[in-house]
Structure formats: C-alpha cells, structure tokens
C-alpha cells in the first residue's frame, strides 16, 4: 500500500490534489481511516478490561501499537480466509475457514471450536423456535384447537 499523505478526518485538500486522486482511492483511504479508528476504539476497550484484570495501566502508545498490529494482521487473515474458501471451491467464507485460521495454537483452536459449537446450537434453537411458531400458527387455523400460543421455553436441548 502506498504511504499516502496523511488523511485524517476533516481538512480539505487543495483542488489540485483532488483532481489527481481517483475517487475510488480517496474513498478507500477514508474507509481505511475509519476502520483503523474502529479497531483502535475496540482495542482500547479490550485493553481496559485486561488492565482491570491485572491491575496495570496501558500507555496510549501501547494501545496504539496493539491496535495497529491487529489492523495489519487483518490483511493476512482476510487473504488466508479467502484462499481457504477458494481451496474448498466456495466463494463464501464459513466457520470452517476461521477454524483453520486458528490452527497454530491449540488453546486458540479449542476456544474457537467451542464458540463455533455454541453458535451452531443457538442457530438450531432459532430454527426450532421458528418451526414451533409456524406449526402453532397452522394449529390456530383449525377451529377445533384453540390452543394458546405461548413462548414457553420447553426446549429439549438442555
């Protein structure tokens, strides 16, 4: 990526600069700045949590450094994920691709796999709920059973 002249938030460039820069590039730069800021904000929040857990303080530069490392690492992650999906002849990246990304560290892989299973089971629950709702709705149409439709959590999936 070209080390562009700093494009921080406000500030209007001269009309000369604008004329030279293709519209797409400028928009991309803006997007990059916004994403960098978003990552920085979240990194700050997460560091705050770690600070409280450990009873330390993080300097601003530390937060900025971790944020920048994370932001840059996303490029590698994105490219890897894209390649994993393509290797599996898909164009949509799935959980399986993310798990592959986490393969180097056993504990990380275990954590991600666990989260993936939690997601899968909560997705199943959502589907069960929808089935119950739609079958209950069908039940209502028959005038014989006037069973009230309750949102009871009597799911069998403990």
């Amino acid at each position: 990526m070209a080390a562009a002249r700093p494009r921080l938030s406000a500030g209007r460039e001269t009309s000369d600069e604008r004329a030279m820069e293709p519209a797409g590039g400028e928009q991309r730069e803006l997007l990059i700045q916004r994403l960098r800021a978003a990552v920085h904000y979240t990194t700050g929040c997460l560091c705050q949590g770690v600070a409280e857990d450990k009873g330390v303080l993080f300097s601003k530069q530390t937060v900025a450094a971790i944020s920048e490392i994370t932001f840059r690492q996303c490029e590698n992650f994105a490219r890897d994920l894209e390649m994993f999906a393509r290797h599996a002849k898909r164009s949509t990246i799935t959980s399986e691709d993310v798990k592959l990304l986490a393969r180097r560290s056993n504990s990380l892989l275990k954590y991600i796999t666990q989260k993936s299973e939690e997601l899968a089971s909560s997705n199943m629950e959502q589907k069960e709920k929808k089935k119950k709702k739609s079958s209950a709705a069908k039940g209502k149409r028959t005038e014989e059973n006037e069973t009230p439709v309750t949102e009871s959590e009597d799911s069998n999936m403990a």
Partner: protein
Amino acid sequence: MEEREGGFRKETVERLLRLHFRDGRTRVNGDALLLMAELLKVFVREAAARAARQAQAEDLEKVDIEHVEKVLPQYLIFIL
C-alpha cells in the same frame, strides 16, 4: 456469547476483511463473522496480557511500548 468489555462489531469485521479480498465475489457468512470477532478479541487480549505480564515481571505497573516489543516475536510465532 458473553459480552465482556468491548468486542468487535460484526459490521466492522466484515468491512475489515472485505477491504483485503482479492476476488469481488468473496463473502463471509454470519457465523464466520462472529467467530472472527471472537478471534480478534482473543488476539488483542492475549497481546495485552502478555505485555502486562512483561511489565509486571519488571516490577512496573505501567505497560509501555517496549513491553509489547519484547513479547511480540514469541507471541506472533505462537499464534500465527
């Protein structure tokens, strides 16, 4: 999923990834986005924790950039 202090928004993760895709057709499904958000969260927290431990090993309460620099090589080898 438990919500501790902060976490990456699904939308942010999607944009972050899409920024670097080489193929215009590449998409990310919802679950994968949530998992990536978790992965990034761990990535940040672990880096921060390691830097903190380094500072504490040096009897310091303030974590500075040199602590990040010290732990970074081993961390990246471990996680990547």
